[in-house]
């Protein structure tokens, strides 16, 4: 049931346009999505928004990888929003 | 359109009825009688059972306009001033009520059955109530309730 396996942490990542660069390029978004897909934790959470859900450590590590991939592809800005999930602190070890 | 009908002994009038509305919708949303339930809206579950001119019907299958000038009796009128009708009493006592969404329909259908056949056999009860679906009870307690109500030998109030 819900909560049996509720994700501990979520991170939303979005490659955003900056004043200088205009729209984020397809390649930047794709690079982020490709790496995200490989983490095994990724879903979509809105247009161009990646959502990672899982244990604390794996989510944080995956977020770092994705940010790097986007930057490597030339992105100027990546928004990252990390949240603990309600009730998640009640998980056992 | 305007609709005039007698509901539970009271003359009622309601305006602005869309022609496509069912009697069930009018009872629930316009006349403040939500006791009849909207579980399937296609005559399969019996939750909306009412009397229309003394006949048991699914009010979801009656176009509101068809009830113009008719007499409608809903679950709200099954109990009288003196409290619960024996059918209702029996449903509560027997544990025939769980989520209760099917209950108003069962109460009206049982009321109709016992009015026509005060001492039904089990097979007759089952056939008469086959158009009322219940998802919670597995029907055992409902059968028990009908037996109790029948044993009381009380006839319908109207």
């Amino acid at each position: 049931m819900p909560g049996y396996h509720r994700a501990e942490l979520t991170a939303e990542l979005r490659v955003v346009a900056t004043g200088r660069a205009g729209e984020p390029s397809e390649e930047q978004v794709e690079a982020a999505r490709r790496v995200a897909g490989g983490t095994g934790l990724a879903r979509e959470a809105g247009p161009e928004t990646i959502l990672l859900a899982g244990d604390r450590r794996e989510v944080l590590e995956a977020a770092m990888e994705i940010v790097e991939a986007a930057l490597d592809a030339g992105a100027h800005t990546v928004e990252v929003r990390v949240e603990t999930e309600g009730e998640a602190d009640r998980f056992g070890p | 359109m305007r609709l005039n009908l007698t509901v539970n002994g009271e003359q009622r009038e309601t305006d602005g009825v869309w022609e496509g509305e069912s009697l069930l919708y009018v009872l629930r949303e316009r006349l403040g009688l939500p006791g009849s339930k909207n579980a399937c809206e296609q005559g399969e579950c019996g939750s909306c059972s009412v009397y229309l001119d003394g006949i048991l019907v699914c009010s979801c299958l009656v176009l509101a306009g068809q009830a113009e000038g008719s007499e409608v009796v809903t679950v709200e009128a099954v109990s009288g001033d003196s409290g619960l009708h024996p059918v209702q009493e029996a449903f509560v006592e027997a544990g025939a009520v769980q989520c209760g969404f099917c209950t108003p329909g069962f109460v009206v259908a049982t009321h109709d059955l016992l009015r026509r056949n005060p001492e039904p056999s089990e097979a007759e009860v089952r056939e008469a109530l086959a158009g009322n679906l219940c998802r919670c009870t597995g029907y055992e307690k409902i059968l028990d309730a009908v037996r109790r109500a029948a044993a009381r030998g009380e006839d319908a109030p109207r």
Partner: protein
Amino acid sequence: MSQTTPTTPTRVGPGPTTWTPGKVGESDRRPDGVPKVTGEFEYSSDMRLDGMLWGATLRSPHPHAEIRQIDTSEAEDLPGVYAVLTHEDVPGRKVYGMEIPDQPVLAWEKVRYQGEPVAIVAADHPETARRALEKVHVEYGVLDPITDAEKAVQEDAPKLHLSGNVLRRIRILHGEGVGAAAKADVVVRGEYEVGMQDQAFLGPESGLAVPDGLGGVDLYISTQWLHIDQDQVAESLGMDPDQVRLTLSGVGGAFGGREDLSMQIHACMLALETERPVKMAYNREESFFGHVHRHPAKLRYEHGATRDGNLVYVKARLVFDGGAYASSSNAVCLNAATFACGPYEVPNAEIESHMLYTNNPPCGAMRGFGAVQACFAHEAQMDKLADELGLDPLDLRIKNALKPGDRFPFGQEVPPPAPVREILERVKVMPLPEEQEVMGRDLRGLPGGVSNVTHGEGVKRGVGYAVGFKNIGFSAGFDDYSTARVRLTVEDGEPLVEVHTAAAEVGQGLLMLQAQIARTELGVEKVSILPADTRVGSAGSTSASRQSYVTGAAVKLACEGVRERLFERAREELGEPPDGLSVEAGNVVRDGRTVVPLAELLDGDELEETCEYHHRETHPLDENGQGDVHLQYAFAAHRAVVEVDVELGLVRVVEIATAQDVGKIINPQALEGQIEGGIAQGLGLALMEEIQVKEGKVLNASFTDYLIPTILDMPTVKMEVLELADPEAPYGLKGVGEPPTIASTPAIVAALRDATGLELTRIPVRPEQLAGVSDGPPLPDEPTPGGAGYAEVGRLDGRRET
């Protein structure tokens, strides 16, 4: 769009329910019984407020498509329409989900199942709202759907989610695994399939959202878990949970189907946008698209045993179709894996459980939760094995029955009580119904009933047995707690206990149970149960058969706290010695003598305690699928007697006999209701209930073609109830809701096999299978009225203007 002065009417919430309940162990008249028989009980779909608008949902007609464009302008211009919202209007997180937030509140680039919400509207009449939906123009680029879980894992399958189509994989390795195969004298193999069952609760999803005028919103909703709804709604509205207050409104059944959100976020969005109360009420057809279903599964099994009938090993591969979104699939996958071998002592096992994303309807919680699918397969295997060994199927089960102290394949020690052998022996000795002459019997006692298909011709009787088990409460490390606030006060000179929890009464009788506990623990006649809402801490979900245990324990704990404070007061004020005090009939008592009436002792004060009950810690599985995963186990055995018209494949179930261990009977009548009702749902899965899906589209979203048992289908139930106390649980009780649903299905199918000699590897068993008539051509997707699916209703593009 229409403009009116915004109003924020306030709603008077449901009041407390006060009555004088029975004590623990007694049948009580349920307090909501009277309003339910008179029609006065207010279900979520009955609520209304002045100035209220009606919400409606536009759903995707396609199981898999790109959304190229959404044009709402024409809909917005329609008189009587107050709001038309899309994903762009979701203020907070655009996805939600209980375990993993992967499901769009409103779809943006893609739709992944037929019926996925794309836009919502609020209007002054349901018909206006429906017309507005027709005027929302969505341009779709239709994609090929993935409709087969086995194909979803293939390399070339398109990825439905960023990380692919595998939602979860679990592997359990126990003992030597299949390495033990050499020790087996006999091996039986089988492949089984379970169709998609629906909860089919009678009260369709509905709710009323009321803006508070200060930016927040109150939501009156029928749900199973208020707090997890609150979390998800607040997250998607971008608000603090405090600004989103939920109150439980009358619930017309649940069975797992109300654990996920349906219109909760939508109604709140529309209410906040229009600054008016907004009611959303699904009709039956929409309800089929508005909640998750029981997972369809394919299960491949291999059982090895010694010649004398001792199980040597089990190998199982379970594949579940999770549909488009995660829901509670992770937990279902775990449950199925851990119950894959049945309640038997299996020294070696290798189990794989796979949960996959497809473009089929999302699946999640339903009564039995993963144990149902596994039980159908392992019980079929046990019968097959008995046949192979020439043993009585019941004796084979008894021989291999689990007992306390054994190890489950996932390593946990079987906790007491685990009376598997006892319940099997009970059903074994229960007298069989007398065989009655079939020829010339009343039609209503024959397969087909008054449809007059047989007067006894072709009718054969069969008897079958099955046993199943399931965990009670949430597992694998989740701190599955409940909160209760109990207040002792004096009203009209009489002591009154008020109990406040957020636990959802969905029909099962939790109101009674809470009151019975309060009355038992505090010795007070009058108890009042306050409406469940988010003003008190979480009670967890009304699911996993857990509320009697967990919320029961929380109420008991809080009552004990209040009682302690009463005794303290008695000691302080009356100088009573600390030991030997009790409460009875409204008095503090010692040795049967009244020390002081509660009313006098309280002297106008109130005593209040809020307690959280946390059960024993559980643990996740390790990489070999080992761990102390579950809290409590409940077992039930069933015997089915059927009569089959073997020529036509029609069935009458004659009787179900069952034995179940419940730990302690809290309320006999409510317990019987759970057992009988659970069996009815098991019967439905065995014989008739299946959501038929073709190419991702639902073919029978109506009560005309999704058939649930009627009163003419459900037989008499004989039951024996064992009360073997669980030392860890309050009063020793066990959860009772789910076990009746688990083994009743395989027992019926076993009886059908007995009557027909057919193998019957798929449920629901259709008349075609029983009559031995091979399948014809594949199903056409010709929709029937009220049974088509949203291709027609959501878009209304199949409308005929006549």
